[in-house]
């Protein structure tokens, strides 16, 4: 008696396993293709983010005049920075600028979002118009502000003089305190829409039932905001703040165009000071070390916020 090996009708015989017949088939494999698709962005990030970052660190450890070969000096550039009185002025300026501007943007942005979340005529148009400060190129809007802060043309001075202040009114960019206040206000004006629109998007995800329930429980408007809106918006506020701090801390264009760090370094920030040293004085290593001192503060902040968000 022999065993019959005829295939059963309707049952497909399993294909024998075999190696890929061609490169085309190998490329068709999902893991291979997905890695190929990932290669371009990874290379892009490595080239335009990773390489400059590592190069910046290497530069900061060298005495590296422009157009010359660098020599390794360890942490000497950082020691020079710490002995430089302007550096400490720059550090204080940057923290004040970032802290105050971020706080103003957060409060203003929240108020803006709540206002924009109401129903009124031409709501969409108003929302679109509010984005203008964020859309207009910074250099362009800064030039407009430059005119508005020039005592000869300033609308603010015109009002203050009309109210009885002696001519020519405040020197917005000539007085160190007013100059810092001016750049903070302009940065806030520019960054407010980013906060406002992002928080508005968050507001619109809050279920109306929660407000209805709170109202039935007798909550006032403030209590609804404090105990319903704010807790639900908290993750979005943290993310927007994180981005805002990073952008504000590294701000360059506004100061470079408006004051170039003056008067007497009252508005000099890390980014503008690093640029002046690196490009103006041709000290690439020293300039890189100034720029890199931003890193620990920013890294700590990002870490703290990330941990906080995870815990939430």
């Amino acid at each position, binding site marked *: 008696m022999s065993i019959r090996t005829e295939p059963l009708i309707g049952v497909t015989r399993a294909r024998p396993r075999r190696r890929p017949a061609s490169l085309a088939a190998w*490329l068709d494999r999902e893991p291979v293709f997905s890695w190929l698709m990932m290669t371009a962005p990874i290379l892009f990030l490595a080239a335009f983010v990773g390489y400059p970052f590592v190069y910046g660190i290497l530069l900061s450890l060298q005495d590296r005049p422009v*157009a010359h070969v660098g020599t390794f000096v360890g942490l000497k550039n950082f020691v020079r920075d710490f002995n430089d009185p302007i550096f400490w002025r720059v550090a204080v300026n940057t923290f004040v600028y970032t802290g105050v501007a971020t706080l103003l943007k957060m409060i203003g942005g929240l108020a803006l979002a709540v206002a924009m979340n109401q129903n009124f005529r031409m709501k969409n148009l108003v929302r679109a118009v509010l984005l203008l400060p964020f859309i207009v190129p910074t250099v362009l809007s800064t030039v407009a502000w430059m005119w508005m802060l020039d005592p000869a043309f300033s609308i603010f001075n015109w009002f203050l003089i009309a109210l009885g202040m002696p001519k020519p009114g405040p020197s917005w960019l*000539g007085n160190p305190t007013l100059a810092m206040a001016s750049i903070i206000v302009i940065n806030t004006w520019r960054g407010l829409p980013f906060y406002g629109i992002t928080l508005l998007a968050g507001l619109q995800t809050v279920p109306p039932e929660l407000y209805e329930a709170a109202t039935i429980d007798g909550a006032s408007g403030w209590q609804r905001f404090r105990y319903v809106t704010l807790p639900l918006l908290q993750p979005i506020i943290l993310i927007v703040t994180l981005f805002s701090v990073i952008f504000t801390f590294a701000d360059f264009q506004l100061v470079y165009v408006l004051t170039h760090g*003056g008067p007497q370094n009252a508005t000099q920030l890390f980014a503008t000071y690093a640029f002046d040293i690196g490009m*103006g*004085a041709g000290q690439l290593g020293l300039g890189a070390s100034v720029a890199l001192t931003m890193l620990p503060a920013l890294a700590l902040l990002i870490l703290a916020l990330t941990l906080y968000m995870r815990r939430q």
Partner: protein
Amino acid sequence: MSGRSRRDFLKIAVAGAAGTALAPSLGRAADKSVTLLHESSFIKTFDEYMQKTLAPAYEKETGVKVVYELTSVGSLPTRISTITETGSGADVTMIFLLYPFLFADKLMDVSDIAEDIGKKQGGWYDAAKEAGIVNGQWKSIPHSNIGQLMNWRTDWFKEVGVTKFPDTWEELYEVGKKLKAKDHPFGFELGHGFGDNHGWIYPLLWSYGGREVEPDGKTVVIDSDETARAVDFARKFFKDTMLDDVLGWTDVSNNKAWFAEQISCTNNAESILWLAKRDFPDIAKVTDQAMNPQGPKGRFHLLNCIGHSVFNFSPQKQEAHDFLHWVMEEKQLGGWYASADTYYQPFLHAYDNAPMWDVEPRNKPYRDAMGSAHLPGWPAPPTRQLAEVVAKYVTVDMFAKACAGASTKEVIKNAEAQLKEIYRTA
């Protein structure tokens, strides 16, 4: 189907990348050209003369195409840095202030051009040698000076009985007091601009006998009686003659104030008069220019030299060298200067009495000032330390802080500490 489209995608991506990488080099191989990187001139006819007259003439004569690449003067140092760091880009560049010294190792020795041109065109001003020679070699061919001088309103000065520009700083101060009382203040930049601050601060310091560093390039001597006198003068000059706003001014500010008829005197290039003649003819009629006032130790001006350098790593460096030599010959150079009136003041004595000076006689002080013009930081040699001093606005801020209310002793001590820290590496 999906497999084929994926392969197609990859093929196209690879082919595209290869094509992009190869195309420029194939294109370059067919060209014979020299690229000149230059500031976009304030005087449009100057750029047009290169684009429409000189470049086509050179191509016709030699077959070498000249690419005239324009950039803003503010971004020029960044562009030059990028070119020297990457070893690719333009072949010839406009260069100015201390940059020939910073980039010297990457610039071709063009002494042969300088000597030939100097011999044929009346010789160089000393200021040209100060700006172009690095360690005995000409690293740039000085083209011209963009002088920073006094711009003053003749009608308002006349109101206080002054028809000739004051000869000394003290005399100017006395006039300024009277003019401020009549609501015609002065406006001299004391902020972080590009040139209008250094344009009068260094000459003021020098005219009182002050200096930052000795010619040895090491010894810091800012803490002196001469510096203190210059700072004291600046404080009262600011307080009694100027707008408070000058402390925050950048380079555009005094031009705006001038055309808003807000100030009666400032320190600027010829551009104020040039622009006034074009756009504000009534203001132009009452605008005049003069050399800086003198102090107890003489009269000084800032050397704001622009020149041209050839990158020594350029594959076309010989062609670039030859083009630069050709441009600097009288036949070409005279026309190029004339295209901008006298906004660019020649460093060659052959042009001292050129007809272009008669087009606008009010510009003649810019020519006369070149004999007493020096680079920022003079008499210290132009070094990387000096470039750092200028980039950190050490001296400008010393004066500005005093004007804002700090004591003379305090501001000089601060400046001295900064200078010593910077020059510690010399």
